[in-house]
């Protein structure tokens, strides 16, 4: 093996990588917030929503969880325009991430809700709380706290999965790596560096989510 590794291109191309990182962070921030919101709504609809809505949600969750993210992305970006829904690359990427995370987080949050003791919601009702109030204060928040670690891992998985949005030319970190390797012909080095950045992003994202967790659940039900 006579290959000589060369990272000299970093001097010239680091702004490209930085921009890619910024786009990836932006995508996962929007994706996580909206995706979890969608997940909460779906979990609510499955537990307490109107009867006709429940099979729709179940179908959505099963369909998303059993198809690859890449195909969901292609369907949204290439398929939906034929129905008249035009989107930019970034919008399509973000929509795909929200739809994907929504289904997974619905399932995770539902597991948390099912683990909530039945007496809790009865207690809420006996305190004359409305069903919505009971859901929000008695069921949802403790459930979210319970499943926060699982939800956090799912967000990290979606962030790592977002690498494929480069395939519809959304200019994320992977797109930056592709761009650099096409200019410098240093494919291995470019992907090596961006893989290392993804690893750091994943570690940082875990820390951030843990911090967010302690922030929004301030020792609520800790005995």
């Amino acid at each position: 093996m006579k290959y000589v590794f060369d990272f000299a291109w970093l001097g010239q191309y680091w702004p490209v990588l930085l921009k890619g990182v910024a786009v990836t962070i932006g995508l996962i921030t929007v994706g996580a917030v909206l995706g979890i919101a969608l997940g909460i709504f779906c979990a609510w609809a499955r537990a307490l929503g109107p009867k006709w809505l429940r099979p729709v949600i179940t179908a959505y969750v099963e369909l998303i969880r059993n198809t690859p993210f890449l195909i969901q992305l292609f369907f949204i970006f290439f398929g939906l325009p034929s129905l008249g829904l035009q989107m930019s690359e970034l919008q399509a990427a973000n929509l795909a991430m929200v739809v994907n995370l929504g289904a997974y987080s619905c399932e995770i949050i539902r597991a948390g809700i099912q683990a909530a003791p039945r007496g809790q919601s009865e207690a809420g009702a006996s305190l004359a709380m409305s069903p919505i109030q009971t859901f929000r204060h008695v069921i949802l928040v403790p459930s979210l706290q319970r499943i926060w670690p699982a939800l956090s891992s799912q967000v990290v998985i979606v962030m790592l999965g977002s690498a494929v949005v480069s395939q519809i030319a959304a200019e994320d970190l992977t797109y930056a790596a592709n761009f650099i390797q096409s200019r410098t012909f240093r494919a291995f080095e470019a992907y090596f560096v961006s893989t290392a950045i993804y690893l750091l992003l994943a570690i940082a994202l875990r820390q951030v989510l843990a911090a967010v967790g302690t922030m929004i659940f301030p020792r609520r039900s800790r005995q």
Partner: protein
Amino acid sequence: MIEFSLWDILRNLLLATRWTVLLSLVAFIGGALAGILLLFMRIGKRRALRLFAKCYVELFQGTPLLMQLFLAFFGLGLLGIDVPAWLAAAVALILWTAAFLAEIWRGCVEAIAKGQWEASSSLGMGYLQQMRYVILPQALRIAIPPTVGFSVQVVKGTALTSIIGFVELSKAGTMVTNATFQPFTVYGLVALIYFALCWPLSKSSQILERKLNVAHRNH
């Protein structure tokens, strides 16, 4: 311009599905074998091996599968061999699957009560005997549902190999779209085929979990 009937599209997609299934099987079986090796390193007594397995799992769970595919594709090329896409795809998927399976199985082994280890060692069993007769048979039972569940991730993971040029279901979908200009239909069908592959696995994982848990709950 040639007209493509729905059957033409579906037939081509189904032909490509063979490769998705084959690659999934290779990745899963290869990953399971490598995963067992990793598992024994991870729960064994040698500190260096434990650390290696831990870092391996962290590394593969903390980076995108797509990047692992790229690195396998271009990294194997550095060794001076001409790397066909299927080889890079298989290598990357096996390594990736091994990391996840090892971590799932580690959880299952650690779920076995400590008393079981103590009881078996008080019977004078060696490490291998403990593993063979006491720990693994019990761990295997709880390991089946999550393992079957993870096979869904493997099938979905094979979709990414289309990006490095392996022609399987997703790549066929892109190629058929380019020929027919019907992305809505084609990607819709591709999604349905993936669903038909994955949904039975997800469902059986759920059913197995319910069934195998019955014994567990009565303890």
